[in-house]
């Protein structure tokens, strides 16, 4: 504790930054942490680069997929036969298959998911919730090959086949319906947990106001809470559908490999993801047009899911503002 006269600017003091080594260390740590954070940016950049490079640019440029196949043909063609003597690169059958399955999954997963969310947030006692939520988490954590197995060996032969055959329909062994059903089951936990968050974010006071007006629990849930949480629910739907669109293994196992342009759920279809898997399993030689078609399809898939994700983020941000 030294006596000091105010004014002298640089007395020998312990306060000056003397030990630059430790400062350098601090700096180095911060930079390396920043680099860690930048890995995620690099990942996105890498994905976009890889997909775009192989399908749009490539070296030399005339070998790019979209040089050999016109964008118009790709997006409007209704035949997908990259590996035949007579090649067609119309991605619509794959998109159609993808959305057929995502559609079925949505029909199964969204209502069950949202009703579960309502049940958990409005009806269930804490005890029931504490039992059911972990179970839903387990459902979310089951690998998708298992769902594929489930669809192929359980749902198709014991549910779809007998049921629709009895009704006089013709059911393919691999079909969009059983794949769609298991993908639907897969997205239930996602919908229910995200929607439940949205429902719980609805202030308690709104519920009380509803009850005070003589609402039943049904009125409050369906006419007050659900509409108030609407955008949050929509966001969860979008995310779940994006997930269904990107689902791979279950669909590859259960839906078959036929790039047919059909909306018949009892038919075998091929999705974008299962085409990608199929090409990679077949080990198509790199550099061929068939091989590059994989990147074009992946780019298409990536764009679709990206748009849905961004949309859902946008919607979610909107609903956060509602109660502010």
């Amino acid at each position, binding site marked *: 504790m030294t006596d000091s006269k105010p004014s002298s600017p640089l007395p020998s003091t312990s306060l000056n930054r003397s030990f630059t080594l430790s400062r350098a260390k*601090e700096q180095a740590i911060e930079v390396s942490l920043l680099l860690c954070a930048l890995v995620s940016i690099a990942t996105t950049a890498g994905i976009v680069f890889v997909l775009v490079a192989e399908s749009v640019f490539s070296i030399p440029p005339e070998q790019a997929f979209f040089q050999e196949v016109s964008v118009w043909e790709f997006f409007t063609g209704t035949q997908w036969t990259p590996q035949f003597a007579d090649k067609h690169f119309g991605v619509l059958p794959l998109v159609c298959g993808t959305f057929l399955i995502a559609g079925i999954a949505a029909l199964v997963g969204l209502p*069950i998911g949202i009703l579960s969310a309502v049940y958990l947030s409005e009806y269930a006692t804490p005890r029931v919730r504490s039992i059911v939520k972990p179970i839903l988490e387990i459902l979310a954590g089951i690998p998708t090959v298992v769902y594929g197995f489930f669809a192929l060996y359980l749902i198709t032969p014991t549910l779809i086949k007998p049921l629709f055959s009895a009704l006089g329909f013709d059911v393919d062994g691999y079909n969009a319906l059983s794949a769609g059903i298991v993908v639907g089951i897969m997205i239930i936990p996602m919908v229910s947990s995200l929607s439940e968050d949205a429902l719980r974010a609805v202030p308690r006071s709104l519920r009380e106001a509803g009850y005070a007006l003589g609402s039943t629990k049904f009125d409050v849930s369906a006419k007050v809470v659900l509409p108030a949480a609407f955008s949050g629910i929509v966001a969860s739907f979008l995310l779940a559908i994006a997930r269904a669109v990107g689902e791979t293994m279950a669909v590859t196992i259960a839906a078959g490999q036929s790039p047919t342009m059909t909306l018949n759920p009892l038919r075998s279809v091929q999705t974008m993801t299962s085409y990608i898997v199929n090409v990679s399993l077949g080990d198509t030689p790199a550099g061929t047009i068939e091989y590059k078609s994989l990147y074009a399809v992946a780019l298409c898939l990536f764009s679709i899911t990206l748009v849905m994700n961004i949309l859902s983020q946008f919607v979610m941000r909107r609903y956060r503002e509602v109660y502010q």
Partner: protein
Amino acid sequence: MSTPTLPAAPSPGSTAHELTHGRRENRLFEGLCAVSTWSSVAVLAILLTSVTYQAWGWLDWQFLTSFDSRKPERAGIFAGLLGSCWMIVITILFSVPIGVGAAVYLEEYATDNLLTRIIRTNLANLAGVPSIVYGILGLTVFVRMFGLFGEQGVFQIEGIPLWGDAVIPLPFGRTVIAGALSLSLLILPVIIVAAQEALRAVPPSLRHASLALGATRWQTIRHQVLPSALPGILTGVILAISRAFGETAPLVMIGAMTFVRFAPGKITSLEVVFDDPSSLVRAPFDTFTVIPIQIFNWVRQAKSDFQHVAAAGIVVLLVVLLVLNGLAIYVRHRSQKNLRW
């Protein structure tokens, strides 16, 4: 406005009647919600019992210790088990430090500027990218390395000091390391988000107290923030790892071999490691298979008995996953006990 009734007689008049009339749609809706919820539980139960039923009699010690075979009764999951373990260990080595590092940067260092906002938005988007796209990324970047080194295996580095004669192929080719790197990228967003949440739960007062004692920012993070956030981070990591454990599509893209009768690095037992420690270095650069890919392979087999083999594999996979989830719950529980604010 109903006519005032005198308090005395609880008459069956208008008020009483009004107040005692029931409602059906309420019950119906609750029933619908409950059925929906419990149907998920039922599906899980059906799934588990049917798989266990199919696996019954097939899941034995021999199954756990045998390699794959063309004969269902001889087929086993040993190669997949070891492959999955390698895959997970290396994935952890890459994804956890980077993921936690990124989370620490975002929570403890980042100021609100364009870059960090881009990073945050990007993270949310990455979490929604289909896993197969990560497979394509991994295939191009890690397996082929953009073709920079030509076809697979053409270029190798040998005789690395300390490692001895272990061979590192460049590009990596269809090896454990290529798969693990792809999976690391896949689970990175999950880890980052979980770690961010754990860091956010550490009270700022702890940081302030440490800084006020003359700790540097990093010292504060290293000694106070990270230890306090550790349970939360661990929980997130375990859940992310269990996701990686069941992940199939990216590894199919990477080209994890489907019929493999060996473990990476020829490590089939502990003795091998003791005899030749360099096998530990060789393993990451070896071809491999993992449990879910073996299952996928068996599901596709026409011989109907392979269905049971697949089911047995599924049971093994689910047991591992349940153990991991249980671990996460335990860690979460422990943390609630140990750290009270």
